[in-house]
Every structure is written in C-alpha cells, then in structure tokens.
C-alpha cells in the first residue's frame, strides 16, 4: 500500500478506513518502507524529478515483490505513466537507474499497479462485498465521484471507462444504497489549481457540491484523498467564498463500507470529516437499531 502525501499528512480518514476494511476482504496491506512523494505535483516544474520519484517508489515495491496499491488517483496515474515512459525509453530508464543507484535501488518495471476501485470491484467483487456487510445503506442515495485521474487519460489503462464508468456506482449499490447519474459526474474537483488559483479551485469544487445538494443526493462518495480534501476539508472555505451555506456530506467509499460492516465511526475516521456526515450515519443507525 502506498499512501502518498495527502493521505499521510492530512487526510487521515483515508488510511484509517482503508486499514479497517481491506484486510476484512482478504486484501493484505503492507506499507512500502522508505517511500517518498510520488512526484506528481513536481512534474510541473521538472519532469525528471517526477520520473525519478515515482520510479523510486516502484523500485522499493519491486524489492518487496508486492502489487502496488496507491490510495490517491494522482499517485496511481504517476505510477502508470512513469512505468509506460520507462518502458518506452531504455535511455531514460538507465538515467533513472543511475540516480537510484545512490540508494542501492534498481527499477525493472515488474510491479503491477492497482487502483483501489479495481481491487474492490474487479478483485474482491460487489457480490463478496454484499455478503460481508451486515448493515446495508437502505434508503440513501449517493453520487459517485471518481476523480479525473481514475479515468483519464484513457489510453494509459485507468480504473474504469473514461466516458461511461460504472464501477464506483456498482460498489455503492453493493452497500444497499441507491446511486444516480448527474451531469457533473466526470468533472474535476479543482484540486489541480489549488496552489495557483485557489479561489477558482474552490468555486469548481463548490459548484459540484451545490448541484448534488439540490439534486437530492444524500452524499458524495470518492476514494481519492486529493479530491476528498477539496470536497470535505475545504467545504468551509468554499462556503465562505461563495457566501452560501452549502454543506453536503462527503465520504470515502471505505468509510461507508466500514459502517456497513459494523465498524465503529472512530476507527473509520468519521469524526475527522469536516462535512456534515452525522445525519447520514444517524439514518443508517436508526434503521438498524
């Protein structure tokens, strides 16, 4: 398991809930020792820095002979893209290996990179999830937010179809909840310009939350900590900027799955969500009480 920067330094519920639910589905989580940033944000200022950082994490994973499971969409794209680039260019691979030799590491490109949506949908499967849960989310309707890099660029092989993805919706359905399509489903969370155009990034995230609220959804569901940071942690800032009282529950899929499995709120980090998640949890608990 590769946590990445935001899950490790801020979005703690991502790690907490993943550690609770994945082992219950027989997905063993092993932390990659010595890992650093995937380099994704630094690709903007220096491409080789990004290539080196991602190849370094993959090399560490190769040493442990494990599949790679990055929890963040940005980390996942980095790994897929760098693997592809190094396969295409033996010269670049040698250059990177020259740098990795400083730490006695070597990149070969043998690690299989998996997305958490693929692990849950393709490896574990919705039927298995359905059998594992004891408290289904009956009577609630959720909106799936995949996040850009789970779907695009499509030619790199992403977690689901870029134009008509269904896996996250199927996974929501496996929890007994309803889901629905909405026009902004494939839109970006805005995090990509959080450092260069902060207000615009908040407006982009806020627009989606407002649409979901008025469309009658009970909450937004995602797996990506970078997106969740926008939709959950930044919700107060969005409200202040837009002068609205937009408050809309946002969850990690692994948090909802954990609730359905009967895991307590605290272990899933539900006390850390900044959006108003209590109402949804109370509805669920009232039904199963």
């Amino acid at each position, binding site marked *: 398991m590769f946590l990445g920067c*935001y899950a*490790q330094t801020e979005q703690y519920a991502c*790690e907490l809930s993943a550690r609770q639910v994945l082992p219950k589905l027989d997905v063993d989580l092993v932390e990659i020792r010595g890992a*650093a940033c995937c380099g994704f944000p*630094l690709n903007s200022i220096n491409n080789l820095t990004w290539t080196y950082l991602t190849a370094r994490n993959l090399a560490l994973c190769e040493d442990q002979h494990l599949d790679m499971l990055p929890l963040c969409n940005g980390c996942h794209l980095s790994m897929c893209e760098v693997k592809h680039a190094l396969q295409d260019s033996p010269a670049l691979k040698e250059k990177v290996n020259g*740098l990795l030799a400083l730490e006695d590491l070597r990149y070969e490109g043998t690690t299989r990179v998996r997305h958490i949506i693929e692990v849950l949908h393709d490896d574990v499967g919705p039927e298995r999830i359905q059998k594992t849960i004891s408290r289904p989310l009956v009577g609630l309707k959720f909106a799936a937010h995949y996040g850009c890099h789970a779907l695009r660029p499509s030619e790199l092989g992403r977690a689901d179809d870029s134009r008509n993805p269904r896996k996250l919706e199927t996974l929501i359905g496996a929890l007994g909840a309803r889901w629905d399509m909405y026009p902004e489903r494939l839109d970006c969370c805005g995090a990509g310009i959080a450092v260069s155009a902060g207000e*615009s990034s908040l407006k982009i995230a806020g627009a989606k939350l407002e649409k979901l609220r008025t469309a009658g959804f009970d909450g937004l569901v995602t797996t990506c900590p970078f997106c969740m940071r926008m939709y959950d942690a930044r919700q107060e800032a969005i409200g202040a900027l837009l002068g609205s009282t937009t408050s809309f529950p946002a969850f990690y899929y692994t948090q909802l799955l954990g609730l359905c499995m009967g895991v307590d709120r605290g272990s899933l980090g539900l006390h850390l969500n*900044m959006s108003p998640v209590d109402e949804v949890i109370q509805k669920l608990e009232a039904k199963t009480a």
Partner: protein
Amino acid sequence: MVIRSNDLDLGFVEEVSQISGEAVKSCFQCGTCTGTCPSGRLTSLRTRMIIRKTVLGLKKEVLSSPALWECMICFKCHEQCPRGVNIPTVMLALRNLAVREGVPPPEGYLKMAKSVFEEGAVQPPQEVVTRDFESFSRTSLNLSSISKPADLAKFSRALGEIGLRKIIGG
C-alpha cells in the same frame, strides 16, 4: 494584437514537441479544448490560444503567461481532441520550459518541492481539527510515523543531481 517577426522563435514548437512527445503542430484550432476546459470557465486559461501561440513561436509570451499554471491537468481536453494531442502533457512541458528559462512558478510549487527535497513529502504531517473542534495528529490517531527515505542525505543528493536544488534556490 500585432505580432512582430523578431518576437518569434521558430524553433519553439519543435522544442515543445520534442519535450512533450506530442505533435503540437497538428492542432487545427477547432477550440474543443477551450470548450471542454473546466478551469477556463473561471480562469484566464484559453487552451487553444496557448497552443496557437506555441505553434507561432511566441515563446516569451507563452512561457511568462500565468494561464499556463491554471490548467488542472484533468485530461478532459485530451479525451476530446480530434487531433489526439495530449494537451495537459504539452502544458506540463511548457511549465518545465518556463522554469528552465527562469520564470518563477507559483509559490506553492516551490514550497512543495522544498519539502520533498528535505523531508520526502509535500508537507509535514498536519494537526487536524475536527468539526467538533477536537485536535488530532497521527500519534493521537494511533497511526505510525510517515514513510520517509531511509537515508535522506542520499535521497536529496539524487534530487540535487537532477537540479531540484537549483530550482528551489537552495
């Protein structure tokens, strides 16, 4: 806008194509990229214009444009581009070139780069305050300390060899 021939760098588009690996010149200016851009609705980013100026060779103007940094790298335009140009990859190549030419990137990028250079992550672990105004850290949540390179000195040396130290001004 008046374009003067001595403002043009005719090798610019080749340089960008070479770095990005994309056929920038194949753009026929349909504007689908600008039309699909979720950032451009709110920011100064006009994707088609950046591509056009790049093809023309307006190097200085393109590289110094703040709009370069307003692309969210969401790949929506790329999925729609009828010429199959991976535009976000072109944007990243332009940003790399801008930095190489001495244009300072937005402050946040330098901050993240400095933190990765010194500590391995874009920021140190943050103390979070919940909606009930309680404070939590990794330790109080019973989470182990964050993953870091075993030998930070060797790690920073590799990044220094790439030239990151120079970029962050160390």
